[in-house]
């Protein structure tokens, strides 16, 4: 099918960060997979943005958008609330089993405390269709960072810029990421700029 051209994203400097477009091999894999069929379901856990809506709907899929950082305890200082929330609140990613074809997690998992990220991964594992793909970004070093807004600006191109306030961000080694996704079928790593690892996980 002919996909609609993606809308041009404006240059962003929200949160003091410069927009940076980069090639994404993980996104390229997701695009390739999603082009194989129509009327699939994509979930974007970074919240709604026009580029990502155009990306998914342009290929004939539905896009569910929700910023899990907002859902799981609020945008500011949410760590304590997340610690005491081992299961996802109702209304968060309530899809039938195996009905989602791709999940764009971006960097959100590393901003969630252990119980929340574990509950989220459990839910994603349940709702992803066999063979479905999950894309996640991880910093290798622990620190305080602003979460990233990730816009799809091409079939294999992302524009990434920090948004909102700085918050604690857990660092993940390759081993820790492998352990995190051990219930999934396979995963592949791509090292990108700024110590950011792209991970593509197959259900």
């Amino acid at each position, binding site marked *: 099918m002919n996909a609609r051209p993606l809308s041009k994203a404006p240059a962003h400097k929200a949160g003091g960060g410069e927009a940076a477009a980069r090639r994404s091999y993980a996104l390229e894999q997701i695009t390739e997979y999603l082009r194989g069929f129509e009327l699939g379901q994509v979930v974007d856990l970074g919240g*709604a943005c026009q580029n990502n809506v155009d990306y998914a709907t342009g290929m004939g899929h539905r896009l569910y958008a929700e910023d899990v950082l907002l859902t799981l305890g609020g945008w500011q200082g949410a760590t304590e609330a997340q610690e005491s929330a081992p299961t996802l609140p109702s209304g968060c990613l309530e899809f039938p089993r195996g009905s989602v074809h791709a999940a764009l997690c971006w960097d959100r998992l590393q901003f969630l405390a252990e119980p929340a990220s574990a509950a989220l991964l459990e839910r994603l594992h349940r709702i992803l269709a066999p063979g479905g793909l999950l894309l996640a970004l991880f910093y290798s070093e622990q620190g305080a960072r602003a979460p990233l807004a990730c816009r799809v600006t091409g079939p294999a191109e992302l524009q990434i810029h920090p948004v909102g306030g700085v918050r604690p961000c857990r660092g993940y080694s390759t081993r820790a990421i492998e352990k995190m996704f051990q219930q999934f079928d396979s995963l592949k790593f791509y090292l990108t700029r700024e110590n950011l690892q792209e991970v593509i996980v197959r259900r």
Partner: protein
Amino acid sequence: MATQPTRTADFGTVRSGALIGKSLTITGEIRGDEDLVIDGKLEGDVDLPQHRLTIGPSGVLQGKIRAREIVVYGTVQGNLHASERVEIKKHAKVIGDLKAQRPVIEDEAYFKGNVETVRAETAKAAEAPKAAAAAAAAQSATAAAQSAAAGASGQAASSTTASGGAGGTGARQENRKG
């Protein structure tokens, strides 16, 4: 010819149609055949298949919306279905599924839900039977009116045909002409 009344709201100019102001709270369903701006509170569904619905910055709507165009500056909790476009403006808050030919979500808008695009031909096909039914209803009303007019002594019944589109559904329409 007289022009339509014009109102200026803080989110733009309302060219025509009805306005539910900031202080109004309505519980119930709204159906109609003209553009509508909601800047108050509404608990209930809105059905304006041929027209534009605008939820103003103070507008809060809890219910399903079906319209030709939907523009949200305020808050909506419910599903939005537009045969043409849906625009969720900066600082608007929408929780619900969105179906439109052209969905637009501005930066800094909050949206949680599913987005699905409907193709132009699909939207037209969905509207066609309703339009045909409305036309048929209008035609039969015209025929009835003509026969009634022929039977009666010079009494005109043209008002029956004039309200054929929206009036035929027996819809309740809540609006206030500006």
